[in-house]
């Protein structure tokens, strides 16, 4: 149970970082919508679960937040990537690609030996 949620949290964190890299500073609601859209609505998350993840990333210094004003003049908290966040994203992307590549080899039809 907790293993699964750890994996999920790690993945979610990666998605958050990627979203912020792509779109720049964004509020929590925006991030949630974006993740849902990008996943092609395959992923249906409770928006509430996003916030502890955001907080953790902020505590670890990968993102920072400040209050700003939204398009329709609403006060909202905006999150943006820090330099450490960018580095972490690059690292995580590499490691993710490696993992998927390894797994892909396992699932690919056996070739020689």
């Amino acid at each position, binding site marked *: 149970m907790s293993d699964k949620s750890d994996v999920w949290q790690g993945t979610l964190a990666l998605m958050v970082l990627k979203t912020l890299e792509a779109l720049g500073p964004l*509020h*929590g*609601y*925006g991030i949630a*919508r974006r993740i849902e859209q990008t996943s092609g609505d395959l992923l249906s998350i*409770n*928006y*509430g*679960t996003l*916030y*502890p993840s955001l*907080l*953790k990333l*902020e*505590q*670890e*210094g*990968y993102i920072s937040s400040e209050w700003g004003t*939204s398009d*329709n003049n*609403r*006060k*909202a*908290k905006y999150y943006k990537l820090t330099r*450490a966040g960018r580095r*972490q994203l690059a690292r995580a992307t590499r490691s993710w690609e490696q993992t998927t590549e390894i797994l892909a080899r396992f699932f690919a039809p056996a070739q020689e030996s």
Partner: protein
Amino acid sequence: MRLRQLRGWLARVAGFFNYENREREFAQELECHLQMHIEDNLRAGLTPEEARRQALIKMGGVAQTKENHRRQRGLPLIEILIQDLRYGLRMLAKRPGITLIAVLSLALGIGANTAIFSLVNTIMLRPLPVENPEQLVSLRNEVGGKVGMAFSYPNYKDFRDRNDVFAALIGYRFAPLSVSHDGINEKLWGYVVTGNYFEALGVSAVLGRAISTDDDRLPGAHPVTVLSYKCWQQRFGSDQSIIGKSIIANGRSFTVIGVAPQGFFGTEFIAAPELWFPMSMQGEIEMGSPWLDRRDVEQTYVQGRLKPGVGVAQAQAALNSIALQLEREFPDINEGKRVVVAPPGIMSDAMRGALLNFAEVLMIVVAFALLLACTNLANLLLARATERRKEIAVRLSLGASRRRVVLQLLAESMLLAAGGGLIGLMLAWWLVRLAVGIKLPIDFPLLIDLHIDYRVLLFTCLISLATGVLFGLLPALQTTKIDLITALKDERSFGGHRRSWLKSGLIVLQVALSLVLLVGGGLMLRALEQAQTIKLGFDPQNAIEVTFDLRLQGYDNDRGREFQKRLLDRVRTLPGVESAGIVDLTPVDLHFGRSPVFIEGQMPERIINAPRAMASRISPGYLQAMRTRLIDGRDFSERDDESAPRVAIINEAFARRFWPGENPIGKRFSQGSAQSPLMEVVGVVEDGMYAGLSDDAQPYVCRPLLQSYSGATTLVARTDSDPQKLLAVIRNESQQIDPRMPITSRLLIEKMSMSLLPARIAASVLGGFGLLALALAAIGIYGVMSQAVSRRTHEIGIRMALGAQASDVLKLTMRQGTMLTLVGVVIGLSGALALTQLMKRFLFGVSATDPLTYIAVAALLVAVSLVACYLPAWRATKIDPTVALRYQ
């Protein structure tokens, strides 16, 4: 990566504070999130209500989100702990009286334990204030199974120079001093030490230099001294220019060459002399008895620093091969002498044993007291938990885990324990200060360096923690193991024995504990009472003693005799003085030693096997001044001087031991060595106490001071008026004869009370805790009985409605309490029989199984607990059946 995690934790620690702000901020963020979502939903064409509903569903519960956020924000475990502690505090504050009693009884237990521990810490655990103290050992001089502390100086030198197991072997000796500086005369204690002493111990001077091997070359040629830090501070006002100044010690001038560092008090735990002199000056310090060349005088204490990697057994073997060489070289003196390697310190094993035994008894007493406080605490928590049974049941049925509830109950007991620990520590601090403040009337630089150090603090924390957990856990576990349905329905079970095993156990324990403590206290009281009637062999009332050491002022034998005679003559003519005499050792003096006795016609084969007897040297008039009864023969007179035949007075025990059934008058013996001149017995005195109080009479010999001079003597005078006033007058007389003579004086009564001090302390501690225990046990029994009765009100009502008499009800309800008490008494009696064996040493004249004490204490306990049982039982008989039956 690790660093990031650390940063995360730090942020969480920060999030732990400023709770309100962060909470508000997150509420705003969520609110804004919802609003944006609702607006989007409205744009998508939903009705306002539906838009809101969908947004909330998608969020997944506002409260839950907030809770998850909170968890990530701060430190949930600690927050829960704080919550529990707060809750515990509130619950404790609700019943301030009971809480106070619990905390105070815990504080008493913990405080007493801490104070005693600090004593043990001083005696056993604290390292010596020297470099690598674990490498130090003391050497003991064993001959024929008897272990001596000191070696002859020539033997020491041979051991030092021939061994290859010690990095250094040092020799030292205590020396009484009469020091004059700046016009003040003081009696102090010092050390004479070998030249390698300071270097071997790794101690260097804070001012000037320490004594070195260069100061220990030619006897009499190095008049230098090193002051202890305390001496420098207190007697010389921390004079920075002290180096090079001279002081007069024992009539000779010495140059101060250094000041020892603060905290260095030599190599003994219990003594702190103030000056160090080179061993080469021994003859000048101990005027008239030089022993540096004497292989037959054993005065040097020896300590060694083992070479790295050398074990005790190896060192002992190496030393004993040297001892064999010395035996061959000096067979007369060194026959059979062997070396034993022992822990550092000249405190003899017997003395250390006695001290430890005393500490042991006290430790057990205070451990019992703590245990008692704990059972009390457990009782209290149990009662509290029973009151809260319903609340706990509600929480358990609402889904609280048992662990969570137990933790919450534990928090409460931990709070009590922490409070008790804190107050206990303060109590211990106060007790220790009190103990250090006691000025013992002993002529020795006794070092009572009790203090609360980190070991003591650690000890206090640990026992507080242990009490809190142990005695909080049991009730908590028992309370949470409840049948939810009955608990929620608030049903009273009939009889109610099932769940009360813990409570019954606690009562039994309390009764047993208080019985053991009371028996201990009772025995000590009996012993004190016995000590009042003990046959002292003299009368300490209205007598005083004035001690002066003529050797320290450089008096030779003739001048010394002259001084003794002049002082005695002056004192005898003082108004109010009935009689006066001079003696070298007064009872009950620990310096009393036993020396071998050689009866004419009963020579032993080896000196080692000679029987021994105590001895002192007295002047005419001494026996009269002490009111020691002369049973047979005559007292010494002025005519028994050096030109007269050698004479002696013995006590009855001596006569019984050596001439059973014969008239001892006229018999002859010698003492000390077989070659000493024979003495003729001219008188017999009653038995008495000599070296401290003991049960059996020891053989004892008096010799005339006029035939065997001693320079270290005590004048004893008996008065029919105020002895305190006489003290001042005699001081004045002594000043007139020699203004520089340092004297110490006191009432004989004071000295006697000193030797009973350990017994007094033990009796009051044991008795005090015993009474406390009794009170606690009585309260406990009363509490348990009242609860049992109120639980059985319904049952009693039915019984009475069916025709049970008041006496039947009384019997029914009292049976339980009586049973518990009796079980406790039986356990307590067997415990007391076992544990009081440890106290034997302190019980003069009373058996550790003194039946009177046991019976009286057991009867007292049974009586008290019967009263505690009777009150609730009596109340039960007053129950009106109609009320009781309705009572649910």
